[in-house]
């Protein structure tokens, strides 16, 4: 069954051209995760480039400590959220698997990617409609978000293990091999920081694409992540219809 037939079939189950795409756990995760990433990037930036010094007695001041604390707390939220998200890829509906398993072995997937690229380069008149993510989005989510997050979690835990020390799971499972893999601790810091920019670039593209698609491709994108439903504002066209 091709991806497109798959989606058309799903559509037929509803009278309205609207599809339930994002289940509640996915939506909740999405926004918690967005909040965690925002916190991580903000505090992480300051960890490498601290704010101006503050005066006073160090006993009563813990500014940098709090910055780091919120980073670590948000890091664990990101981690637990991500583990849950991986679990939900198995437990949830088939859209939940999409970003983890881009169907790169399928020809129509790559045709979709090419078509989306054309659409973004103003070469195609209309985008194809997809119930979940379009193939290009799936690919970018997979490479930039999924692997970016895994990278940040692994390097982040390796840095965290340096503080907790030998004998802790963070050190034994992560620091012990991640640090020599990158060279030394400093390299892990640097790559963790490069990873932040990688994620920030993803966020820029992600938000832009979501807003733009919402307007240009006449299907809900942003509100779908709140309500779970994807509405197609152009009832004459069904997802997967060739334009």
């Amino acid at each position, binding site marked *: 069954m091709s991806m497109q037939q798959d989606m058309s079939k799903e559509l037929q189950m509803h009278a309205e051209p609207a599809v339930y795409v994002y289940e509640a756990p996915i939506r909740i995760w999405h926004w918690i995760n967005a909040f965690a990433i925002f916190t991580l990037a903000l505090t992480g930036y300051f960890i*490498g*480039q*601290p*704010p*101006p*010094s*503050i*005066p*006073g007695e*160090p*006993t009563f*001041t*813990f*500014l*940098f*400590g709090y*910055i780091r604390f919120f980073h670590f707390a948000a890091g664990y939220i990101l981690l637990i959220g991500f583990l849950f998200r991986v679990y939900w890829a198995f437990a949830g509906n088939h859209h939940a698997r999409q970003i983890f398993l881009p169907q790169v072995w399928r020809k129509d997937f790559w045709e979709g990617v090419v078509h989306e690229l054309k659409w*973004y380069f*103003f070469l195609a008149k209309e985008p194809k409609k997809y119930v979940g993510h379009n193939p290009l989005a799936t690919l970018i989510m997979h490479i930039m978000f999924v692997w970016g997050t895994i990278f940040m979690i692994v390097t982040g835990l390796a840095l965290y293990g*340096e*503080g907790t*020390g*030998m004998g802790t799971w963070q050190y034994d499972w992560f620091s*012990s*091999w991640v640090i*020599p893999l990158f*060279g*030394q*601790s*400093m*390299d892990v*810091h*640097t790559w963790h*920081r*490069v990873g*932040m*920019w990688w994620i*920030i*670039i993803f966020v*820029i*593209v992600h938000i*832009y694409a979501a807003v*733009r698609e919402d*307007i*240009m491709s006449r299907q809900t994108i942003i509100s779908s992540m709140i309500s779970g439903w994807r509405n197609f504002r152009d009832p004459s066209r069904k997802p997967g219809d060739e334009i």
Partner: protein
Amino acid sequence: MQATETFYDVMRRQGISRRSFLKFCSLTAAAMGLGPQYASQIAHAMENKPRIPVLWLHGLECTCCTESFIRSAHPLAKDVILSMISLDYDDTIMAAAGHQAEEALKDVVENYKGNYIVAVEGNPPLNEDGMYCIVAGKPFTEQLRYATEHCKAIISWGSCASYGCVQAARPNPTRATPVHKVITDKPIIKVPGCPPIAEVMTAVITYMLTFDKLPALDRVGRPKMFYSQRIHDKCYRRPHFDAGQFVESFDDENARKGYCLYKVGCKGPTTYNACSTIRWNEGVSFPIQAGHGCIGCSEDAFWDKGSWYARLQDIKAFGAESNADTVGTAAAAAVGTAVAVHAAASVVKRVAQKKGE
């Protein structure tokens, strides 16, 4: 050289009293983080075990490891160990010279097969068949290979032997290569630092001589008892770090107050070493206490990471003076601009479409 001679015999011959000997044992046990009961174990081992010969080789290096070693806080420690070692081979401090010295080396290699330790200071440069470092008329690589062939274990002294150090800095013209990349079939214990702390050196060697085995090593090959924590973990300026109180530039008011040196490039948070606990020169001070950040001298490639006074390291692939943030902001700005242009183009297209309808 008697085969049955023990460490204790050697010490007594050096004129060391039994009382001093026992003090040395307690001190060593304490330095290695072992309980007091180990002092007697060390004493027992030293009294009964035949002395293990040590060959101390010098490759491409500056001799700062030896300089550090002979300044060990407890004079006894270094006297004892030094005299034990110099009996065999260490071209900086042994009495023998020339052919006599090379004989001594040969003697140990041939008579103690599989039962001696090679301590290497410096590293072999491999370019031009090793011609950049000649010892006794031959490339050091050859001496290293010859001496280690039958050894029990190797100690890589300092960052040179462990990682290559400054002579291996890009572009590494002599191809200075750390010992473990040349000798791959022997247990190697790395004691990095430029130089390593004297007490760390004496403790490591004493541990190996008395217990007849390598101390517990981390994954990189460093003894856990001295390299399992970062300078930052035990730094006395840490409260200022947590408070967010930093030296903004050298000689500012914050520097006078002794604030944390993080912003002026302190590498304490990424450097595994014992300076903040054992300190230097008989425990007098250490760099951070003197107002200068740690430069990370016991970490791999510390010489190639950009400024010692910058918190973020250079990313060489993107040219000099670029770090994660300059690369990141440039990339994010490029993507942001692309997005803005794309958004503008999208609006134009939409307006055009609307008109067409």
